[in-house]
């Protein structure tokens, strides 16, 4: 849809192609095009330029519905648990988040809750050192809940503002691994009632429809309070989060745009909606 023109079936077909190839999925795409066809029928949308504006606005609205004002007036220690399937960018995101919070003057503690994967502890430790924040670890193979318990105790005692717990990547379909996360959440809650205050699910923008199943099962098991969408600096559009925003009440908090510490941005529904259509 290059310039202002008539609305043709070709235009609608092109629109369907753009949305599906952005990973919105069949049902979200059909729903959006259905709304559009209704507006066309009532003559509220009359040309190709208005089609584009309508779609952008509609997608932004879907994405905005769960967004909440981030007050940042947390009661210390504010505990954040970071979860997600293998390789999506959890550990790197924690580094970026810790960096951002440190620059805001917060005292941050990182907990090496991935005691399973080779060099996971080393990886997070390098980030902690780069940023200059404190770090709690046990030996590889230790009980992840014990590490996090330790970190929360230390965090509480020494007056940290934020404690972020890294966890090992895992497939959401593996019940025993989900149990391990649920146990970690319970352990955190024993030390600080109401903690963890944030359960951040990290999703990879390259992921297709499986992101729905991931969100569904992590949410069912743990109660997800926020989503981070990483690797948006690639060619993937991450359109699956339109369906996720529509289906769940979970706000999208941040997006990852690279591998360095300052490559984390707050999520902007309108900007994201625009980028989807280009």
């Amino acid at each position: 849809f290059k310039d202002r023109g008539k609305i043709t079936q070709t235009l609608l077909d092109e629109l369907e192609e753009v949305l599906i190839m952005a990973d919105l999925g069949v049902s979200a795409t059909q729903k959006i095009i259905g709304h559009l066809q209704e507006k066309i029928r009532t003559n509220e949308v009359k040309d190709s330029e208005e089609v584009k504006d309508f779609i952008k606005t509609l997608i932004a609205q879907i994405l905005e519905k769960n967004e909440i004002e981030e007050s940042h007036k947390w009661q210390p220690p504010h505990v954040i648990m970071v979860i997600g399937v293998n390789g999506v960018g959890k550990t790197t995101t924690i580094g970026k988040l810790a960096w951002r919070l440190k620059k805001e003057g917060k005292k941050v503690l990182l907990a090496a809750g991935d005691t399973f994967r080779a060099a996971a502890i080393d990886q997070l430790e390098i980030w902690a050192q780069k940023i200059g924040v404190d770090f709690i670890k046990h030996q590889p193979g230790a009980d992840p809940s014990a590490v996090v318990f330790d970190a929360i105790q230390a965090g509480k005692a020494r007056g940290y503002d934020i404690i972020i717990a890294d966890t090992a990547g895992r497939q959401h379909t593996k019940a025993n691994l989900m149990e391990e996360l649920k146990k970690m959440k319970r352990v955190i809650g024993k030390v600080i009632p109401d903690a963890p205050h944030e359960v951040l699910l990290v999703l990879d923008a390259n992921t297709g429809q499986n992101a729905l199943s991931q969100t569904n099962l992590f949410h069912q098991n743990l109660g997800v309070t926020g989503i981070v969408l990483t690797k948006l600096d690639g060619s993937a559009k991450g359109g699956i989060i339109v369906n996720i925003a529509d289906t769940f009440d979970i706000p999208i908090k941040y997006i990852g745009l690279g591998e360095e510490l300052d490559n984390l941005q707050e999520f902007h529904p309108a900007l994201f909606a625009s980028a989807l259509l280009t």
Partner: protein
Amino acid sequence: NLANKLEGIFKKLRSRGRLSESDVNEALREIRVTLLEADVNFKVVKRFIEQVRVKAIGQDVLKSLTPGQQIIKIVRDELTMLMDPGSLKGPIKPAAFPYIIFLVGIQGSGKTTTVAKLALNFKKEGFNPLLVATDVKRPAAEEQLEILARQIGVGAFRRQGNEGPVAICQNALQRAQLNKNNPIIVDTAGRFHIDEELMAELIGLKNNINPQEVLLVADATTGQEAVNIASTFNDRLGIDGIILTKLDGDARGGAALSMKEVTGKPIRYIGIGEKLDAIEPFYPDRLTSRILG
């Protein structure tokens, strides 16, 4: 699932004996949705549906099958042919020294873990592999490869000073020659296909080291961009095969179909877990069933 949906469609239609055009069109609509929801690329689906349409219209319904089953059979056969078992090569057989294998792909796809999985396979077959750590960027990537090497009892080579990937590989090959290591499996840093500088680095590495195999490691959950990723890596770098990881989750794996169709390159292995023995040779009919749900 698709089989039930098609049965439902054909229950409503009266046709028997031959598959009429309208029967086929309605079934194709369902098949299209099934493939898109399985993450097969939009354009790949379009081409595939046309292939099926041509095969299906006017076909005699076999006595033993319902029209729905007939269409499924055509879809299954076409999908399996797309996965091209003709080119099914089975596991890699390292030939004479040096047999160099590069693992490449985007961030987080499972390259480092898969390097170790392949090494364990080769070790069990009596080879003496050497793992080469050229990812000098990601924090603790070299440690990760060393730890995995130690877990399976094979050697790992990492840089001594501040060398780049080319020098690391050249030095590793010298070590491999002295130690009689073969194959030599090279782990590379994750990178985007659209990152000019990093793709150029990889192309330079390939031109310099001349690997016998360049394998693209791709996550089974990859969505529509699978086509872009695979075709760019293939067109610019040249790949010999694909390894699809994380099939132990519930991803339908349509990305595999897209990547195979657009590059013509065979899927050699699949990753089915985090442990180092969680790798299998690829079987097209299993993935076909998975994609069709």
